[in-house]
């Protein structure tokens, strides 16, 4: 179990991470998510020991590891650029951590082969790292991080150098390996879809602080702050003018700013169900196969609706937009 208590990292006068607290249970896949420059990578590097913290504690199974140097922390780290040692073969890259600990050659071979099999690169062991493809290099980096049976696996945007298709298959692979070994994983990414797909829990970072921690579902459905709500998934923002129209058409009394997910906004011809209705004009409909994405003009702004199936409305036709009051988000 890993626990960060009030961790702060400073670069000179600039505070990159401000009082971060979180707890990751054994076997959990924990993701630090946020835009670039939000402090997520700095937090990860603080856990690994590459950055010194100026305040707080980092507890690994109850013991404060903050004063330890990286080589004393028993962590596995996967770098964004893999950081494979160019002068060594795949085998020696993976076996590096064992060799340092003066493990016998037979044991090293056995262990390297086990990890290589787990990560699917057994046949590449004798090769030079430069002979491997991006995806294979990624697997070597993971194998090398796992060789010492670390209590903690840290990954810094490990998929950002791969192409889109490989990224999707590799993220499944990473999750499979982590679950199989049952270790704690902390993962950094700026890709919210990736975070949703692999994580047990996500911490959303913004400007050095954590805005919200929760399961992907909690974060998506019940965002605690406006930042989280806007950063995760697509969102419609109802400014005061739209709210005014809503109030007028539905005879209700909302005030302030509201948000709603596009999939909770529906296009209807008649007012049947109980809920909120709003008149608008179709500007554009994109047919995306399984979905249709409609853009509706209401006053000076537009609302996006995402619905299953095909929608047939001529352009500029008048439509009614329908949604439930319970789906509105307010901060």
């Amino acid at each position, binding site marked *: 179990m890993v626990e960060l208590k009030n961790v702060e990292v400073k670069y000179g006068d600039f505070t990159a991470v401000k009082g971060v607290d979180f707890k990751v249970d054994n076997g959990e896949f924990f993701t630090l998510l946020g835009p670039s420059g939000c402090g997520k990578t700095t937090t990860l590097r603080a856990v690994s020991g590459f950055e010194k913290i100026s305040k707080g504690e980092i507890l690994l199974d109850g013991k404060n590891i903050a004063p330890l140097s990286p*080589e004393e922390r*028993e962590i*596995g*780290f996967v770098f964004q650029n893999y*950081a494979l040692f160019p*002068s060594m073969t795949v085998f020696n890259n993976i076996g590096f951590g064992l060799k340092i*600990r003066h493990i016998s050659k037979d044991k090293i071979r056995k262990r390297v082969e086990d990890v290589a099999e787990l990560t699917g690169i057994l046949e590449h062991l004798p090769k030079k790292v430069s002979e491997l493809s991006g995806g294979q290099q990624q697997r070597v980096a993971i194998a090398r991080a796992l*060789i010492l049976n670390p209590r903690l696996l840290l990954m810094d945007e490990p998929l950002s150098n791969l192409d889109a298709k490989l990224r999707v298959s590799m993220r499944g692979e990473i999750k499979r390996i982590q679950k199989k070994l049952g270790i704690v994983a902390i993962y950094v990414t700026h890709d919210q879809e990736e975070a949703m797909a692999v994580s047990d829990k996500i911490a959303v970072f913004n400007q050095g602080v954590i805005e919200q921690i929760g399961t992907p579902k909690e974060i998506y459905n019940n965002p605690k702050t406006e930042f989280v709500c806007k950063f995760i998934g697509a969102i419609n923002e109802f400014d005061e003018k739209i709210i005014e129209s809503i109030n007028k058409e539905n005879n209700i009394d909302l005030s302030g700013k509201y948000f709603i997910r596009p999939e909770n906004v529906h296009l209807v011809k008649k007012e049947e169900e109980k809920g909120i209705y709003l008149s608008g004009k179709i500007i554009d409909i994109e047919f995306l196969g399984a979905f249709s994405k409609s853009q509706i003009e209401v006053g000076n702004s537009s609302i996006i609706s995402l619905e299953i199936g095909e929608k047939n409305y001529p352009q500029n036709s008048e439509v009614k937009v329908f949604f439930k009051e319970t789906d509105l988000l307010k901060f």
Partner: protein
Amino acid sequence: MQEKRNWSTYRILKTGIFSLGLLVVIWFVFSFLITPVFGVLSKAFFLNGSFSFENISAVLSSKAIQKVIQNTLVMGIATVAMVNVLGLFQILVTEYFDIKGSNIVRFIFFVPLILTSISLVTGLQFLFNEYSVINSFIKGVFPKFNANWFEGFKAVLYIHVFFFNTYFILFVRTAFKKVDYSTIEAAKSLGSSNFYAFRKVALPVILPSILSSSVLTFITALASNAAPTMVGGDFQMLNSKITLLSQLGKRDMAAILSLILGFISITFMLISNWIEKKGNYVSVSKVPTKIRKIKIKNPILNVLMHILTYALCLIYVVPVVAIFLYSFTDANTILRKALPTSFTFDNYIRVFSSGSSAIKPMLNSFSISGMGTLVALIIGVASAIIIYKVKRKSVKVLELLLMIPWVIPASMMALGLIISYDVGSPLLAGKALIGTWWLLPLGYAVISIPTIVRLTRASLFNVNKSLEESASSLGSGPFRTFLVIVLPIIIPTIVSVAAQTFNGKLVEYTMTSLLYAPKFTPLGIIFKTGSESIDKNMYANNLVYIVVVMIIGAVVYGVTTKLRERVD
């Protein structure tokens, strides 16, 4: 338990090695970089123990010295002007215009990289001597031709122009390769001619590199010594005068002249820095296109450019081939500079047979240059590691001090060493260096250190930080990480800079002429005495030495190019 014990011994070892390294570096910098400079300054400014400008004003008011300074400056300017003209032509015909066989032409233009310093001057002096085959041939065709042309200003300029253009080729060619070809195409699509596009579009982009290379060429030309000494005749330059004065025992005058040379060099070095800081034009294009060769449309111009290019190649190639061929003729033919009629291995057998006196200078050069390189490597690499590992203000000072020999001319450093270690010094446990074998290797080490520090430091800082972090996350300590991860990555750079240092010092002339001990005379000096000798064998030996030096130069050039490709 075992691990814990290892850790502490290892820590002691690590700290011990590091402190020892630091101490050695500081001692070396103080003894061989700082002390010599102060030695020269005190010789120049102190008369009978008190500070005075008397020495300086006496030297500066001498008509002969004024002439030498004037000669040096004029030669510097003339060299820069001519090198730029020649260099631009070379860039045009190898990189811009479509000239047949441009790959071979480019290769030939790199000859100056293997034929350097006094070996070059010796070879050319042999070939262009008043009585040489080449001059006799020309005189046969044009009876009015002055066969004694290879002496004085003209000869020195000839050598400078054709063989000092390495900075130009290296700097400007690299810059030219970065010119975005689409900008030239754009200029042409708007109606400009090839030459106009080159002048208005490509030239401004490479102008900063032309300026920097000009400053470096200028400084190199100012410090020229082998050429004015060997073929200058009455045309003396600062460094040749410094050598002469020092050999005559007038060290205070030599010190003042070296100070003047140093002052001019530093001034221009600062100008060069200022130019570099002003920055270059960077291509703004998202997808820069590589330069494509342009065909010259005008047929007459095209033929003319081809003829000029090939003629220039001959100027580079003929000396190399001729020296090579002559080295296989008998000593009499060589002495008479007759047309070779038969070939023999005699010269090589004489030089290389065991116990021969002719092999001694070569062995001396190898061992002195080798030791100089070794010392420079130890101090230079250790310093680079200290700079890399210790991030403190005091290390910045060390870094600056290590660059002293880079801004101060070799002759001044050499004089400083002579002045400082003429008698026993407490810095060397009471030993003196003059007349010992060690003085010259130390001098070579001193002038080689800046380059070694700069290149090693650069390659250290190029090592991806995450490689080190990755090793440390796997449990490797900083010392071990350095040995196992960082060192293998920077080794190619170290090997290539070591090879270049060794090669460069093999026939170095300026330091050598000031510091060598007569008992261990190296090649640089033998080239001069041999070419003045009436002993036909000594005369012939020179050609063998030049061939050996050329071969080593070519091998070193090839190896370093390969290594550099690997680093990239």
